[in-house]
């Protein structure tokens, strides 16, 4: 039951937060804080398993596996399961939810109840996506996380919020529609071929469908995940959504919503359609590389700080795509690591931009500058996360990029060489960000004393620093957590790739 409880806590907490606004405008954030803390409770036994019982990790694919009948006429089950990969992403989600809460604490002043309701429901949707093993349930959660996010952007966003919110919604909804179609196609064809009607991931994986269909269905799934990732031709919702969203929503978007795309590819596309993904791989690698370079070049010319960070996300997520389709254990581990590290470093950057905007009321790079003079702590954090995003060894992002590149180099040397040039371009935009924001002289002579980081912000940021350093210096626990079974699939596909 623990997984259902994990999902119920934010859902109920959200409703409670909404209603509590009638009594006190400060109550919702407290309730949110408590329910986010409570979400950790079901995970505590798992931490115990991780730390003291490594054998059970390797024994079975799922650490927790819970299933109930839901819509029995179509054999749809409420099937939740958790393995190392989903565990990592859930921990990331819950951490980043706390970060988002910290960002929203002073920023959100209107309609707080509804805000925290939406925040918690988005979190719940994301958690559901990472836990659902029944494809239909997966789709349901996929949609659940979108609608509250739409409200978050369109109600509490910045100057151009309606445009951005609608753009976000249409893009992701179109992706979702494509996923629904491919999902129905997959289940239907599976039913035709085996006579078993099921939406269950495990059963679908055991008896893969054959013929020409898998390619097209895999393509459908992949595209719907690419929209979320976002990969190149579908990325244009991201800069707008990120820029216009309130800080908390940007953090959630960057840290976890994008990761659902990568998770979907690793969890569903690769194991369910091994052969089709091998056919798709060259295109996907190409898209990934173009995304890396294109995103970095776009980030270089932005004048809006948030847009810059958003485009850098496009560039970083290109690495994830590269890692997923390299069919190599290093690259796959790297892709998972990149999701975690990017989740932390980029959301930290958004958090910082939020802090800067709160203090200076602008995100324009040409109007900022010389922040170090007045705000040394904030700027030092900015420097740290800027350096992290350019892939400094010793931090998580480097481990991720290194593994992805090493892995894909074995398969696609030329493409990888181009991808590696992304490291140079990452340095270009990261240094530009640091240089224009924190260094130089103060542009607008302001005599008002602007406060440096307060305790809550300092604590949030330093925690993220330490996590990044931990990921960079001691990533082994993360590698051990990523399930071996999944790796086997990669290997099977890899050997098939050689024979093809």
């Amino acid at each position, binding site marked *: 039951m623990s997984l259902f409880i994990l999902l119920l806590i934010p859902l109920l907490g959200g409703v409670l937060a909404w209603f509590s606004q009638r009594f006190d405008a400060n109550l919702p954030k407290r309730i949110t804080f408590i329910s986010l803390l409570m979400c950790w409770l079901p995970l505590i036994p798992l931490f115990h398993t991780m730390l003291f019982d490594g054998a059970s990790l390797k024994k079975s694919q799922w650490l927790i596996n819970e299933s109930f009948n839901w819509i029995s006429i179509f054999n749809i089950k409420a099937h939740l399961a958790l393995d190392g990969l989903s565990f990592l992403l859930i921990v990331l989600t819950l951490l980043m939810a706390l970060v988002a809460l910290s960002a929203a604490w002073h920023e959100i002043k209107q309609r707080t109840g509804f805000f925290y309701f939406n925040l918690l429901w988005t979190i719940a949707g994301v958690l559901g996506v990472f836990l659902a093993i029944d494809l239909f349930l997966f789709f349901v959660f996929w949609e659940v996380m979108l609608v509250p996010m739409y409200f978050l952007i369109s109600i509490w966003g910045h100057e151009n919020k309606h445009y951005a919110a609608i*753009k976000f919604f249409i893009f992701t909804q179109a992706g979702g529609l494509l996923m629904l179609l491919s999902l129905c196609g997959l289940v239907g064809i599976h039913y035709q071929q085996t006579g078993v009607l099921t939406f269950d991931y495990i059963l679908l994986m055991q008896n893969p469908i054959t013929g020409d269909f898998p390619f097209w269905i895999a393509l459908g799934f992949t595209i719907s995940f690419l929209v979320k990732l976002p990969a*190149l*031709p579908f*990325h*244009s919702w991201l*800069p707008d959504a990120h820029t216009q969203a309130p800080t908390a929503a940007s953090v959630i978007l960057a840290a976890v919503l994008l990761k659902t795309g990568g998770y979907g590819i690793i969890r569903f596309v690769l194991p369910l359609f091994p052969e089709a993904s091998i056919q798709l791989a060259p295109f996907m690698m190409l898209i990934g590389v173009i995304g890396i370079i294109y995103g970095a*070049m*776009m980030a*270089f*010319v*932005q004048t809006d700080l948030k847009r810059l960070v958003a485009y850098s996300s496009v560039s970083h997520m290109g690495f994830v795509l590269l890692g997923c389709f390299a069919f190599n*254990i*290093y690259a796959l*581990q790297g892709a998972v690591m990149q999701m975690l590290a990017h989740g932390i470093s980029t959301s930290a950057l958004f958090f910082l931009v939020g802090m800067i905007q709160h203090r200076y009321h602008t995100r324009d790079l040409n109007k900022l500058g*010389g922040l*170090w*003079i007045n705000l040394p702590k904030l700027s030092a954090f900015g*420097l740290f996360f800027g*350096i992290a995003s350019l892939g*400094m*060894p*010793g931090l998580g992002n*480097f*481990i991720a990029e*290194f*593994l992805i*590149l*090493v892995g894909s*180099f*074995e398969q696609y*040397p030329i493409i*990888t*060489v181009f991808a*590696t*040039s992304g*490291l*140079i371009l990452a*340095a*270009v935009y990261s*240094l*530009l960000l640091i*240089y224009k924001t*924190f*260094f*130089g*002289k103060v542009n607008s002579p302001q005599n008002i004393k602007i406060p440096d980081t307060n305790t809550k912000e300092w604590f949030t940021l330093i925690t993220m620093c330490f996590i990044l350093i931990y990921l960079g*210096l*001691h*990533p*082994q626990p993360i*590698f051990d957590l990523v399930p071996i079974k999944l790796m086997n699939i990669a290997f099977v596909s890899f050997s098939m790739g050689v024979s093809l």
Partner: protein
Amino acid sequence: MTNYSNLLSLIPLLPILSAVILLFSNPSRLWVSILAVGSITSVALISSFLNYVYWQQTDFILKASLGNWISIAELSISFGLYLDSLSLVMITIISGVGALIHLYSTGFMSQDKSFKRYFIYLNLFVSAMLFLVLADNLLLLYLGWEGVGLCSYLLIGFWYQDKNNNLAANKAFLMTRIGDTAMAIGLFLLFTHLGTLDIQEIQVKAHTVWSLSDNTIASICCLLLLGGAVGKSAQFPLQNWLPDAMAGPTPVSALIHAATMVTAGIYLIARNSQLFQLAPDVLYVIALIGTFTLLLGASAAMVQSDLKRILAYSTISQLGYMFLALGVGASASAVFHLMTHAFFKALLFLSAGALIYSLHHEHNIFKMGGLFKKLPVVTVSFAIGCSALASLPFTSGFFSKELILEQVVASGHITLWWAAVLGAFITAFYSARLFFIVFLGQAQLSPDTTPTKSMSLALIILCLFSLLGGVQPSGLISLMPPLHADNLTNLQHWLPIILPFIAISFAWWIFKKSQFGRTHTSLLQGIHQLLKSGWAFDHIYQTIFIQPFKYLCQLNQYDVIDLFYRFIEKVSCILNNTFSQFQNGQLRSYNASLVIFCILAFAWFISGELIK
């Protein structure tokens, strides 16, 4: 041995520990100095102790591990440290020169507001540099490699309020990053083909997997590693970040941009010398790059007017000598020159720093003059530094440079030898020019402060090293055997010794006629400008790479791909406007259309039935 291993693991950890303590505490200036200098000094003590141990037992290889880093399938990388005679020389230089420069900095930076920040960066740098030279695998080396790059970036832009400093820092980081990326690709290639990143294993495996006749991939690997080395060591074609990097505080230039970080490239190639032996073509390329760069640097140093830029170009030129030595297969003499260069160039930079400190941050040598009476310590140390740079006999620079020239002859590259000798001539010439202009002649600016005690102390110790440091560490020879040079002609033997004196007399002659800083004909003027800009490479790169890149990015500022989606949006808007004409909001007209449609449909249906 385990005790020694613990000592070894302390070496890179002490500086970073001190940096972390400084970061999270707020001690007084005195305590900052004690902690920062103390940590590096203890590292220096440990490394001198290790030298002593090494002196007692010859085949001395020390290993230590700070734990496991990455272990997936065949990729297994640990924080392993590996100490042999090469890395021992390196850590001795780094910790020794590093400790002196730290000591010096406590005086030089004493007026600065960001005293603590400076020492955090500097300690971090030393730690990264120690990791670089002690790493037993290429990934850990890469960590140190990027770490020193980062600290160099931070320290060049240390005075962050000046835009130019930041631009110089960005330039330094990006240009070295280009090299680093090449090196990263080299790592991928090595791992793909050899299945390991352990440096010693690579040396062994490379000889089993590849051979001299089948060395295409080995050559590519070496070329890519060379890319990294070229970037870090400011060699052609990535040389022009170094002169700009002088924007940082002068002790930083001494430590990072003269003594240690820029020599990382030489260390990398020397460390992988067995791998490079598989690729003679690449070695030849290294020799050519070295020769070209040493001439470029020396000729540019000849015409600069900024004190620190002269030294920067001189560093580029001296690094060129080391590359030349590496290229002809004389790694030991390259590392030897690296060592002596670290001493005398650090000395030169620190004396220059003392000058700048006393003269209110004046960099222009033509505004100085006649300073020998007022700043005796600085004058003496500068004189020693310059003579070692010019390789006057019996200074440390003399022994190492002679050795390099000898090895070049022994390898048979006579053309390169002539170029190197020409470089030596120019080196002696610009050293003399620099010294004459600054210290002799008419007094112009008068110093208002004298260097502090800590600064003088550091200078004096470095003077001793520069004079007496010309002893090649014996371990290097056994590790990387030099070429036998017994076929030197008299000319080849005596010319390099006499040439500096000729150059100095020539410089004296010009100085007496007070012709420095003046050009007469327009042709000379043009050459002067060309040399002064470092052969205009900045300009070339600006036009070839930076401008097109910027233009391309600017062109696409609003995202071409988004235009497609905007087009879809436009089309739907137009359609919406068209169809919303029918949507007039009058409920009754909607009803009417509904009824009319129903009646028509009904009629159509019935008529169909009737016809049947």
